[in-house]
């Protein structure tokens, strides 16, 4: 569904086709607000970014990455060409009591908080890069012909959200709550689809899974 269609549908839902109470610009802003929330609740937008190795053990992603990526799933060491294994500080503590001093070619990673990426061992040289693969915020919808980057059957959730936000501004809280419930229900469906789509493709075999 195109961005312009979403805006039109919201104005119809608000019974304001002439954009008298809520301008097209406000509705567009509310749709993009909902788009950002959908991307956080249902990880449909996958992205990647490269960062340079340093000799530090931790990397502050809030300054190294743009705000597009908010969840790191995989990390690849581009120097060795190998994927880095996700681990935790607990596992490292169980393995070697002075793991913090080791340096070499990083082959494990973990996250602390939302922005700190740790690698083990820390890189012995400040050369080379690692590529982070994760989930992020999609670019906002700007042009009329732009389409949201998730399946069309779930895109009405953006209309629900924008309608909710506009009704809240009008003080119609009860009506707004109904649209918010519809929004969350649709986003849950999208999230369920995204988590199950790999399983749907598998064939069931008696005694196990493919």
């Amino acid at each position, binding site marked *: 569904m195109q961005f312009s269609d979403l805006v039109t549908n919201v104005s119809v839902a608000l019974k304001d086709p002439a954009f008298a109470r809520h301008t097209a610009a406000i509705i567009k802003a509310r749709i993009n607000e909902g788009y950002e929330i959908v991307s956080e609740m249902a990880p449909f937008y996958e992205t990647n970014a490269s960062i340079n190795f340093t000799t530090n053990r*931790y990397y502050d992603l809030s300054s190294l990455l743009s705000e597009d990526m908010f969840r790191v799933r995989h990390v690849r060491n581009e120097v060795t060409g190998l994927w880095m294994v996700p681990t935790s500080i607990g596992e490292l503590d169980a393995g070697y009591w002075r793991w913090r001093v080791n340096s070499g070619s990083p082959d494990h990673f973990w996250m602390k908080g*939302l922005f700190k990426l740790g690698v083990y061992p820390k890189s012995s040289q400040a050369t080379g890069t690692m590529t982070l693969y994760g989930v992020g915020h999609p670019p906002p919808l700007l042009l009329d012909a732009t389409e949201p980057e998730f399946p069309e059957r779930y895109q009405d959730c953006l209309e629900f959200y924008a309608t909710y936000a506009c009704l809240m501004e009008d003080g119609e809280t009860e009506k707004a709550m109904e649209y918010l419930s519809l929004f969350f229900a649709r986003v849950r469906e999208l999230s369920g689809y995204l988590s199950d789509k790999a399983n749907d493709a598998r064939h069931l075999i008696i005694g196990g899974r493919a």
Partner: protein
Amino acid sequence: MSSYAALVDLIEDRVSDPNHLLWSVETIYMAARKAVKRLVADTRILWTEEYFDDVAGTALETLPSYFLFLTAATWDYTNLPIIRSVDLIRSEPDWDSKQGDVQAAVFDGDGSQYIRRVYIPSVNAADKFGLEFYRTVASPAAIEDEVGLLDWTLKYVVYYACWLLLNMEGEGQDVVTALHYKKRYEMGVELVKGLVSTCVPYEQVVHGSVAKIAPGFGYRLPPNFGRIERGRR
């Protein structure tokens, strides 16, 4: 990253009071500061490690003002166990007067803003005692200061601030809408906490490995342990 001034604008827009007829700028700024601290404490999104110098003869370390929750203490890059003072007293009644290499840390008995090394360092050393902890943002000196959080997390700050403002006594009070924003804040906190990952979900249970040991299952002695059997050495 946005400033507190931009955050105040977002909150004003959300509560539909751009001309400050219901809440003054100072009130909204106060609500914004409270909301930022609340979100960071509830979600633990900021984590850091810091190193403190050992001072000969001094075991007590004052925690930074932005300290929230401790995750690990280290000395010379080695993990330190965090021990209760009562357990130390049972094993070593004079533990707090001994000098030597730091082998543990005590987090009780001195107040919530202190941590104590066990034993007392006997020499000065730079950056020896490490603390890894969740932290909060620094308190702003002026409304133009940066919030210290990424912009996409600020919407959850706005929800909490709206809850505070709409709950306040006065012309702007709207308890129903306030409750709605409280619920949206709580949902946002659960969402952000879910994003704060240590990659633990990727751990695999592999037969024969120690990647994960199920509760109740541990190393067991063989069934004939301690029994004398004829013909066996």
